[in-house]
């Protein structure tokens, strides 16, 4: 901190304000004149990235709240309406949903950076503890936000996480009831989670102010871990740190935009495209990737209370770090042993993250226990021990010396560690994916789709034929309740005219009312109407289908998936492979066998399907050759029907896919240009400092 600012505005109006509220002086001393160590590397830009992410999440969150309905019966639908109907709703939703992951990704790097360079050591203990508090608040906020779409994972995640508190002796059950506001997770739970999810980010912002304040009192740590002593050790925050942060942020935005525009569902669970159902638990409850290491710790311990204590302990222990690690040398650069163990610790965390996504059985449990012990041993045994026995290398006399000593030849390790981190993060992201692998059912072959890849568009002919197949075959049992007739005439859709959509709608009978006599009546469909469902409710649907509920098909291509396994899911990230759902559905429609293989016990009323998990499906073979007549001369075969209807359903699940990819291309061109410009501007600015 440079003490009271000597900043004086020249404009008389500003002068008048400044005398009464010295806010410009505060800003100037904090973000312009503030002396920042001149040897900071790019790991330090994650502080700026985190500020950006907090802003992005608050801004998009406030906007999404304008369109979202926090009610158990309407929440899921309102999220779909945001994505389908609100102007740029799909963009705002993707920015917010991927934003949560980016926020955690950045915070983990920020924390590991603090760990490596000893940023928690005297005099920055309070700064560090404030950071741990922010992290805890982020976890609570992220968890509650994930509940709001009210899909299956939302609901069951909420159930499992709130039940953690039932481990508390004596009061457990009462605490859980208090959290739920009912006898189970339900509408009151959703309402309060929404309220808190809106509140907590502002609490985070408040603690961030304290965090930055504490930072500006103690001064920034730096890779050398020696305090800035003279003018020569520092540069003014603006323009030096500002331009460097802007370049870092721009690179980060490229990474972020990849998810927003090309891989919006890569980080999410397909199960969450199924509306919450309190009667059915998904086969694997997997939290979002950023909670996985702690989830693994929870599951490693065979006692309920001990497991919960260990999980929270794993976070709380961070707050005691300044006193667990007594070493005088801050930066691990000069601590040969601490440096190696740091990377072991990183590996342990990633390993725990991977295990958190695996089913809790066999070898996974054993390895999970070993890694849990290692996690705690790092903090409770290793760090205290190292501070006694380790002989650190000599640290440079000053930051200026450090800069002089390493001019040149430091870029390579930087790049390799960035790559290592990317791969590690991919491993963690993909961990959830492999949980779904090998759940019974053969892996569907990957198909060629016109809509895959960054330039993918829908094949209009296939969509129109697919609509016909849906109407003549699927619609007998399956609804399409999020698709309106007007959508058929929208850009990026099957390419019908408004009049055609209107004519199509008028073929349907739609229930309306009540009229002036208070009675419901039927009228021809209008473009604004949604596809009517074949059954009035789930009970009727089950009664007519031997107890099975034919799912609504609006989101089916996003709600069905299969694990791609390691390392395929990593490759998928780069090839933008997103078509697990369509691949599965097209395979399922063609995967019927008249006779189950010998030894397979097919239950009464089920049919054998190669690709259905468990192979016994209640839906009879829906398609046969020649069943639907095509007017455009396409072959009337099951293979063609399956492909067409899947294409149509892919569009039904994401009507704005073409807009997403097209805008993505523009954003990428822009961001690459900006990043290049910022890079050269940064070089130019820093040329003065060296």
């Amino acid at each position, binding site marked *: 901190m440079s003490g009271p600012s000597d900043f004086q505005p020249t404009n008389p109006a500003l002068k008048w304000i400044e005398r009464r509220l010295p806010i410009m002086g505060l800003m100037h001393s904090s973000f312009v004149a503030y002396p920042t160590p001149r040897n900071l590397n790019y790991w330090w830009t994650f502080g700026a990235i985190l500020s950006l992410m907090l802003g992005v999440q608050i801004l998009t969150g406030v*906007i999404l709240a304008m369109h979202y309905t926090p009610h158990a019966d309407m929440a899921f639908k309102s999220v779909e309406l945001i994505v389908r109907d609100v102007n*740029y709703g799909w963009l705002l939703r993707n920015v917010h949903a991927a934003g949560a992951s980016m926020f955690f990704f950045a915070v983990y790097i920020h924390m590991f950076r603090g760990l490596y360079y000893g940023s928690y050591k005297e005099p920055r203990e309070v700064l560090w503890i404030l950071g741990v508090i922010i992290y805890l608040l982020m976890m609570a906020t992220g968890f509650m936000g994930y509940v709001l779409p009210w899909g299956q994972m939302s609901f069951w995640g909420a159930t499992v996480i709130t039940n953690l508190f039932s481990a508390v002796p004596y009061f457990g059950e009462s605490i859980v009831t208090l959290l739920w506001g009912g006898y189970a997770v339900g509408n009151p739970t959703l309402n309060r989670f929404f309220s808190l999810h809106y509140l907590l980010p502002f609490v985070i912002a408040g603690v961030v102010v304290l965090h930055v304040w504490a930072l500006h009192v103690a001064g920034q740590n730096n890779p050398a871990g020696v305090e800035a002593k003279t003018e020569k050790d520092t540069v003014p925050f603006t*323009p030096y740190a500002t331009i460097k942060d802007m370049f870092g942020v721009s690179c980060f935005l490229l990474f972020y935009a990849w998810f927003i525009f090309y891989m919006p569902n890569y980080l999410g669970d397909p199960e969450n495209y199924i509306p919450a159902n309190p009667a059915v638990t998904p086969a694997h409850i997997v939290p979002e990737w950023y909670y996985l290491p702690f989830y693994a710790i929870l599951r490693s311990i065979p006692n309920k209370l001990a497991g919960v204590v260990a999980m929270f302990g794993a976070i709380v222990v961070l707050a005691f770090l300044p006193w667990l690690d007594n070493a005088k040398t801050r930066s691990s650069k000069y601590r040969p042993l601490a440096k190696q163990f740091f990377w072991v610790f990183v590996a342990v965390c990633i390993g725990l993250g991977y295990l958190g996504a695996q089913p809790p059985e066999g070898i996974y449990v054993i390895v999970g226990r070993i890694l849990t012990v290692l996690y705690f041993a790092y903090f409770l045994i290793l760090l205290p021990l190292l501070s006694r026995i380790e002989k650190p290398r000599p640290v440079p006399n000053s930051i200026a010396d450090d800069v002089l000593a390493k001019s040149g030849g430091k870029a390579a390790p930087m790049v390799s560690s960035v790559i290592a981190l990317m791969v590690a993060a991919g491993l963690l992201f993909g961990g959830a994916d492999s949980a779904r692998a090998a759940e019974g059912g053969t892996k569907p072959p990957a198909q060629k789709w016109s809509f895959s890849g960054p330039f993918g568009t829908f094949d209009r002919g296939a969509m129109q034929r697919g609509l016909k197949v849906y109407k003549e075959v699927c619609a007998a049992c399956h609804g399409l309740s999020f698709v309106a007739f007007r959508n058929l005439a929208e850009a990026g859709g099957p390419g019908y005219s408004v009049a055609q959509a209107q004519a199509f709608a008028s073929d349907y009978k739609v229930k309306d009312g009540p009229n002036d006599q208070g009675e419901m009546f039927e009228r021809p469909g209008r473009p604004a109407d949604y596809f009517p469902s074949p059954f009035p409710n789930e009970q009727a649907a089950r009664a007519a289908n031997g107890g099975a509920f034919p799912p609504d098909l609006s989101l089916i291509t996003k709600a069905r998936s299969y694990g791609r396994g390691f390392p395929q899911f990593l490759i998928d990230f780069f090839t933008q492979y997103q078509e697990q759902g369509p691949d599965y559905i097209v395979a399922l429609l063609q995967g019927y066998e008249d006779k189950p293989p010998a030894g397979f016990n097919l239950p009464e009323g089920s049919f054998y399907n190669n690709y259905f998990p468990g192979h016994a499906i209640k839906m009879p073979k829906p398609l046969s050759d020649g069943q639907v007549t095509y007017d455009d001369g396409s072959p009337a075969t099951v293979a063609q029907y399956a492909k067409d209807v899947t294409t149509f359903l892919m569009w039904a699940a994401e009507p704005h896919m073409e807009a997403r990819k097209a805008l993505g291309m523009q954003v990428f061109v*822009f961001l690459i240009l900006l990043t290049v410009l*910022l890079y050269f501007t940064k070089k130019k600015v820093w040329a003065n400092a060296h």
Partner: protein
Amino acid sequence: MTTASSADHPTRRDFLYVATGAVAAVGAAATVWPLVSQMNPDASTIAAGAPIEVDLTPIAEGQDIKVFWRGKPIYISHRTKKQIEEARKVPVASLPDPQSDESRVKAGHDQWLVVVGICTHLGCIPIAHEGAYDGFFCPCHGSVYDTSGRIRQGPAPSNLPVPPYTFVSDTKIQIG
């Protein structure tokens, strides 16, 4: 800072700064667009604002009904001979918002008055068949409209607007 070495490459440096700043500004402006655009009515709201049809047969002479179109109340009055005469008798030039009754109804359907029932003062709903002119009276601040929905007294600046509508048949109109 920026002037320290600008003597070396003044143009290149300035160009770089200006270009970077300009590109960043374009990006910021483009980002604002979706953030504002989302506030406009969404596609389902727009679709729900499609034209509606209203059957006029149940409305007896001297009665009126209120229907909703795009969230607005629309008054449909079946006017009596006396009401039509009252509306046509008054010299148009003497009105605060001069409009003839003929221009506010469809030719050949002079008995039907269709107006948006929202007071042009500050948006309250006027009450039909009240006020000194046998038309509408707004209870909020006392605006009085005549049998043609024209403002006659009070703070409202203009006549009740006529929504777009057409006669589909003699007994049916389409609003919108």
